[in-house]
């Protein structure tokens, strides 16, 4: 639970930090790809955690 919380907060923080540092002012599709792929990866991992951890 604590590890999952720390991981989730890190992902959320990355959504605020990375676009304003590493990807600031980008002119290609990098930022769109970053937001959509990071979210997709997080959602997939959170749902996997949900399925594994609940009801044990």
């Amino acid at each position, binding site marked *: 639970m604590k590890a999952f919380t720390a991981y989730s907060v890190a992902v959320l923080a990355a959504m605020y930090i990375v*676009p304003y540092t590493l990807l600031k*002012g980008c*002119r290609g599709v990098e*930022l769109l790809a970053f937001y959509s792929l990071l979210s997709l990866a997080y*959602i997939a991992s959170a749902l996997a955690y*949900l399925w594994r951890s609940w009801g044990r």
Partner: protein
Amino acid sequence: MSKLIIGLGVLAAYIGLGTLLAVASRRMMKGRSDEELYVAGGRLGGLLSALTYAATTYSAFMIVGLVGFAYFTGAGALGFELAYLVATVFLLTLFAGKVWRMSRERRWVSPGEMLGDLYGSRRLALIVSTLFLVALIPYASAQLKGIGEAVAGLAGGSWEAYVLGVAFAALVIAAWTWVAGMWSVAVTDAFQGLWMLGAATGLLAWLLWWGYGFSAEKLGGAIALLGEEGLLGVGDGFWKLPIFIAFTAPWVFFAVTNPQVVQRLYVPRDEKALKKMILGFTVFGYIYTLMMVAIGLLAKGLTLQGALPQAKAIDQVTPTLLAMAPAWLSAVVFTSIVAAAVSTADSILLTLASCASRDIAPGRRWIGPLALALCLAAMTLVAMARIGFIVQLSVLSSVLLLPLAPVTIAAWAAPSRVKGAGAAAEAAILAGVAISFAAAAIYGAKKAFTALILGIPVSVWVLLSSTAIILLGLAFSKK
């Protein structure tokens, strides 16, 4: 056949089908107890739960507002909406199971009742439910106003068409809410959610075909133009970091502050259905968000290439697209805007009625229907006034509900520790509300949302103050 006739025909088909589904849902209802009326007796399946959660969450803001935001402000709009989704998945994964189990044991119906029970304070339930009424009636009125404006747009902007649109929407909301309470709301939400997803898919596919001929080369050209305009990055244009924080702070806590979605944690019939609800909502939300932002950016690409007229305002992007689309598609998307607004408004209405029934005047069976009628009348009258201030107030509502975030999360995380800390919870909520109102008085309701005090958005000050008070209160009550 004119666009108006096709539009009204599709709208009539949507209302007819929705009403049939609402009436059919009565067969699943077992009496009209509060539990049955407001939380479907806790017997909803996973798919229905997922679609009602999604349709309640995603209002007309998505197909009108988010498309417009992407068009005018670029890629930051995707980050803003996905930050909400990621935070919601996190909060649901962490707390939904626990909240669902407690709702079974303690027979919660309204979210105010939940907080009152966890903190051991009837007065807290009353304060929270009153706050819901104050904050959410303008938000629901803005949905009705949106429908009125859409209908008026079909008829050249006439006042009569606007009033007719609002009145008709109010009638549909009343019928679909009253027929079988949460059952009819959930079933029509599912229907409307699928309609919204289908309409968005159709609009995106048409845009790719009509505007780009499914050509990767043309898409590449549009991306290059968007990049040159600075719409593919953040930091320099609209989405400066404080603005991004101001926009996202209220929404990342939406799943714990908005009673219409909190109440949906009580409705799945078992843990399996609850898991399916979270999965279904997440998949819906991710796909729908990507489609809305893609539509906005693709439309902007066409404008930059001179193939689509420049939209004048954020809420004019979708109507500009619909003016170019085939009549049938325009009618389906127009109806999806109505569906998104109705599915959000009727869920809010039912939740507010449950708050009145359980927290404001508990034990009186007539109070629920009376509250339903009064809330709907208030929503309709406010919408009929057709003033821009409604939209500003609805924006403010997200900040007004924000102090509930630390109070609710503390209660969900440590239910045994918050018992007896009702006074601290009340102080945390009232302090946050006071800061919101003070900011609205100083900056205006709309600007309070993005105003910075010492470089920090008002919404963050609200969160910080409420969090500090509740933590201090808990520490003090423990001693």
